[in-house]
């Protein structure tokens, strides 16, 4: 037999034994332990120690069997424990209603904010990912620039798509083109039902439309629906609009008053998370009718949005390398050295693309980051509240902890209990938060122009995230209070008396962090609002108010323009009229010009106008004259340019520019007759570039180069002015629907992304501050309660109300002061970064900082003062006698 002494010398490692003790049911523990030790003793005699140790470990691991595990009786104890935890949580909740409500409502609001932002962000990120080939679909871009002037266009010349497919057949699986005359609206009519409208979402598309994109066709055949000329697909809601309950299949719609299109399919409404929306898709071959029987062959004019699907295993770089040769091969001599073709993944368009001629205004990745940060901030603030309110309750729970400890609760059991409570409260808040989300999701959708269904809340991934987030927040925020509470010394707690809570410093840090974040959010909100206001109201250099825009492209207006103008100007409320190529102050086109002193022509932003443009828009002249109706040669032999162009040409003064010769598309054309002062012909995201304003009086220009008639009206008589205008319209074009919009409204669309940003930051910052104040309120309540006795004593000694207020608020004010100091540099830095992306930006001033600090200070002062006042009314006899 092995002697005891010898056995002590050679003992197995301790931890597997402990492990056994942890998982093994007590009924079996002794016997099993005995077994493994006996085996060990046996082994140690015959083999090296390491091997015996290893076998010892393996034996114990081998004992992990169902019958050995702790269960049943133990389980029922656990259930009983949880029931007890639950009961205790509930009782505490009821007993401390104010705290609990603050705790839960703060977290619920925070979680609701975070959920909404999460929904928003995940929707933003989902754009164009629903196509099965979305990772292989690219939009081809044209960068047409010389010395920094020109355009970066989302669209390409007509022949590019087919040429790409033809030249790169092995890399390009499909190509599809979209075209819409770059017109804000086109007319469609169901003649049979006498229903006609100007439609803004009509696109012509190649028959490969369905090969590239996965849009749903409810009726019709994807293979053939777009094969024949004069075919049109309409969406479900448009079918309703034009045909109500009739079956639209096979019926015809009249396009622009002269072309009949037959309906060959009904599309599902285009998903909201696609970077452009359509109501009608017309077969591309229908376009031939508008261009004299064949497609335009120009490689200069670039109106077609072109998408390609790369073959599997083809990298975009494979194609990009061959593009320069492609450009040289096809593009006309005078531009081919300035052109670069690029590829843009379709999934990136919505969040990152800001090109010329986008189909629709896109969103901005930066907003996603900012919203994400706001969500995290709000969550942090809410969680911090939760943490310090829980710790603040500690002294109320101290007796309970003491009793539990005296009765033999292990520290781990207390921790379990508090973490359980925290998780339970978090989940309660989560439920309330989800409920809040359900209530405000419709409003949120309206605000953000999204259509996120409530059913998103039931999606597995979403639920999973939600529960995960609940657990994490519950654990994190329960952790600290659990440790503080469980570490109370039994004796001192039970003795009562002065309970020093150690958490005060930690809570001070939390409060400071919270207020730093709040102050940053307030500053950010002010500055975003200010910048948006600046973008919208900064003098653009022309009048955008009281300008009515009437879309006229592809209409017979060309022949009737002069008559229309005469008829309209008869109204006393209409002061001036012109016609323009694009929305003034938002869009422009590009043309190649060669000015005196240049060797080769260069692409310049260009704007086709009719007479009276400068006076209607009220753009000041820097030199020379405006276009004159009485000078016939102005039409082709004269140009007006802006001041930036003058500077970029190296001419010293605008006066010097007048009379300089220019050359357009190779032929010597004429001279500059006038220079206008700079105005923002594109949105204020971009700096002002050189600009050429050219007069175009040809009636045919209304097919392409003149898209709107712009009318200056009397702003006090808007209604009558528009009625007069419509009368004038009907007198020349009785068959066409009259349509109009106000210029300033449309210009504001350029700042949609910023508007959304400011709307959302205002809302969520307000909520964040509200949540922070809830926390402060709770903390103040706590601090007053803790010091009632002190206040009682002081009152007896003759302190007055204002002194009490000072006493109570001093600490918070110091903390807010520190928070303010921390917030200033962080806010300044991040906002400066944001502003740097705007060509026209505000300077960061001091007042938003001061205002934010003052606001926070003021709100907290009120909160604390409320409590101080309450405390000062306490009768000292009440507080002092209750020992």
């Amino acid at each position, binding site marked *: *037999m*092995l002697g*005891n002494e010898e*056995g002590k010398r050679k003992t197995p490692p301790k931890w597997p034994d402990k492990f056994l003790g942890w998982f093994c049911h007590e009924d*079996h523990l*002794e*016997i*099993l*332990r*005995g*077994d*493994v*030790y*006996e*085996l060990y*003793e*046996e082994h140690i005699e015959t083999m090296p120690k390491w091997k015996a140790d290893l076998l010892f470990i*393996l*034996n114990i691991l*081998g*004992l*992990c*069997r169902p*019958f*050995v595990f702790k269960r049943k009786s133990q389980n029922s104890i656990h259930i009983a424990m949880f029931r007890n935890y639950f009961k205790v949580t509930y009782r505490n909740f009821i007993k401390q209603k104010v705290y609990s409500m603050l705790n839960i409502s703060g977290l619920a609001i925070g979680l609701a904010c975070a959920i909404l932002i999460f929904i928003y962000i995940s929707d933003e990120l989902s754009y164009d990912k629903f196509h099965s080939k979305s990772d292989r679909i690219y939009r081809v871009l044209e960068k047409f620039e010389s010395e920094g002037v020109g355009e970066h266009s989302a669209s390409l010349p007509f022949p590019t798509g087919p040429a790409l497919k033809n030249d790169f057949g092995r890399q390009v699986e499909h190509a599809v083109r979209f075209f819409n005359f770059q017109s804000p609206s086109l007319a469609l009519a169901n003649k049979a039902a006498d229903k006609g409208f100007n439609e803004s979402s009509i696109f012509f598309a190649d028959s490969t439309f369905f090969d590239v994109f996965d849009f749903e066709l409810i009726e019709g055949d994807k293979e053939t629906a777009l094969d024949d000329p004069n075919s049109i697909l309409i969406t479900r809601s448009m079918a309703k609009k034009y045909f109500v309950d009739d079956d639209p299949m096979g019926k015809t719609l009249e396009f622009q008053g002269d072309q009949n299109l037959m309906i060959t399919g009904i599309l599902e409404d285009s998903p909201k998370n696609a970077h452009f929306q359509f109501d009608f898709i017309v077969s591309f071959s229908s376009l031939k009718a508008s261009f004299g029987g064949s497609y335009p062959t120009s490689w200069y004019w670039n109106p077609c949005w072109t998408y390609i699907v790369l073959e599997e295993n083809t990298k975009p770089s494979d194609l990009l390398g061959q593009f320069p040769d492609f450009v040289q091969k096809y593009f006309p001599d005078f531009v081919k050295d300035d052109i670069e073709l690029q590829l843009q993944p379709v999934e990136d368009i919505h969040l990152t693309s800001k090109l010329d001629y986008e189909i629709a205004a896109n969103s901005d990745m930066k907003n996603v980051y900012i919203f994400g940060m706001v969500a995290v901030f709000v969550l942090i603030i809410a969680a911090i509240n939760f943490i310090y309110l829980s710790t603040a309750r500690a002294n109320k729970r101290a007796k309970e902890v003491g009793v539990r400890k005296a009765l033999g609760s292990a520290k781990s059991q207390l921790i379990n209990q508090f973490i359980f409570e925290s998780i339970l409260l978090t989940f309660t808040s989560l439920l309330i938060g989800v409920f809040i989300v359900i209530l405000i999701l419709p409003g949120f959708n309206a605000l953000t122009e999204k259509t996120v269904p409530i059913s998103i809340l039931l999606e597995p991934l979403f639920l999973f995230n939600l529960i995960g987030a609940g657990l994490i927040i519950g654990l994190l925020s329960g952790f600290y209070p659990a440790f503080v509470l469980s570490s109370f010394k039994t004796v001192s707690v039970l003795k009562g008396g002065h309970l020093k809570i150690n958490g005060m410093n930690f809570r001070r840090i939390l409060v400071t962090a919270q207020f730093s974040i709040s102050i940053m959010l307030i500053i950010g909100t002010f500055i975003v609002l200010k910048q948006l206001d600046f973008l919208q109201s900064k003098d653009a250099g022309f009048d955008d108010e009281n300008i009515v825009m009437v879309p006229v492209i592809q209409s017979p207006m060309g022949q009737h323009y002069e008559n229309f103008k005469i008829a309209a100007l008869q109204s006393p409320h209409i002061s001036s009229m012109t016609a323009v190529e694009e929305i003034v102050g938002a869009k422009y086109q590009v043309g190649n010009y060669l000015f005196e002193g240049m060797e080769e022509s260069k692409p310049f932003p260009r704007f086709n106008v009719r007479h009276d443009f400068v006076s209607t828009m009220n753009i000041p002249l820097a030199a020379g004259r405006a276009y004159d109706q009485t000078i016939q040669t102005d039409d082709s032999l004269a140009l007006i340019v802006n001041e930036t162009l003058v500077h970029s040409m190296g001419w010293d003064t605008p006066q010097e520019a007048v009379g300089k010769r220019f050359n357009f598309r190779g032929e010597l054309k004429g001279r500059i007759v006038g220079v206008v002062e700079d105005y923002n012909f594109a949105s204020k995201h971009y700096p002002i570039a050189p600009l050429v304003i050219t007069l175009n009086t040809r009636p045919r220009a209304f097919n392409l180069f003149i898209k709107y008639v712009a009318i200056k009206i009397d702003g006090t008589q808007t209604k009558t002015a528009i009625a007069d205008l419509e009368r004038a319209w009907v007198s020349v074009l009785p068959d066409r629907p009259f349509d109009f919009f106000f210029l300033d409204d449309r210009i504001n669309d350029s700042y949609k992304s910023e508007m959304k940003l400011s709307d959302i930051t205002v809302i969520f910052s307000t909520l964040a501050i509200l949540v922070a104040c809830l926390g402060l309120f709770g903390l103040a309540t706590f601090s007053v309660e803790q010091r009632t006795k002190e206040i009682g004593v002081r009152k007896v000694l003759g302190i007055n109300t204002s002194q009490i207020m000072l006493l109570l608020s001093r600490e918070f004010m110091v903390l807010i002061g520190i928070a303010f100091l921390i917030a200033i540099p962080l806010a300044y830095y991040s906002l400066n970064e944001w502003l740097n992306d705007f060509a026209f930006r505000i300077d960061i001033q001091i007042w938003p900082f001061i205002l934010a600090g003052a606001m926070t200070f003021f709100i907290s002062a009120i909160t604390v003062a409320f409590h101080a006042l309450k405390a000062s009314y306490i009768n000292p006899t009440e507080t002092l006698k209750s020992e």
Partner: protein
Amino acid sequence: MKHTQLGEFEELVLLVVGSLHENAYSISIKAELKEKTKRNPSIGALHSALNRLEKKGFITSYEGGATTERGGRRKRFYQITAFGRKALDQSYELRSSLYHTLPNIGYAGK
């Protein structure tokens, strides 16, 4: 009669418990099994089987007194019950009756 069902390993353990008489406890059973069957079951597997056998009523157990070996821990001794004995008998009968229906060995070799 689910209770009377015996797994192959269970049957072996039951036989060993019966054959060891008074000295049947986990380690001795394990040693005996190793010696007789050349297989070396882990004590986990062995306890698992013993536990099942006891649940089915084939064996009973009692705890022996503490000794200095095994770090002063007690052993659990196992005894076969009458019911266990009967199960073994039945199993044996079943097997031998089936065995006797086998044709001649020489025939199988052909």
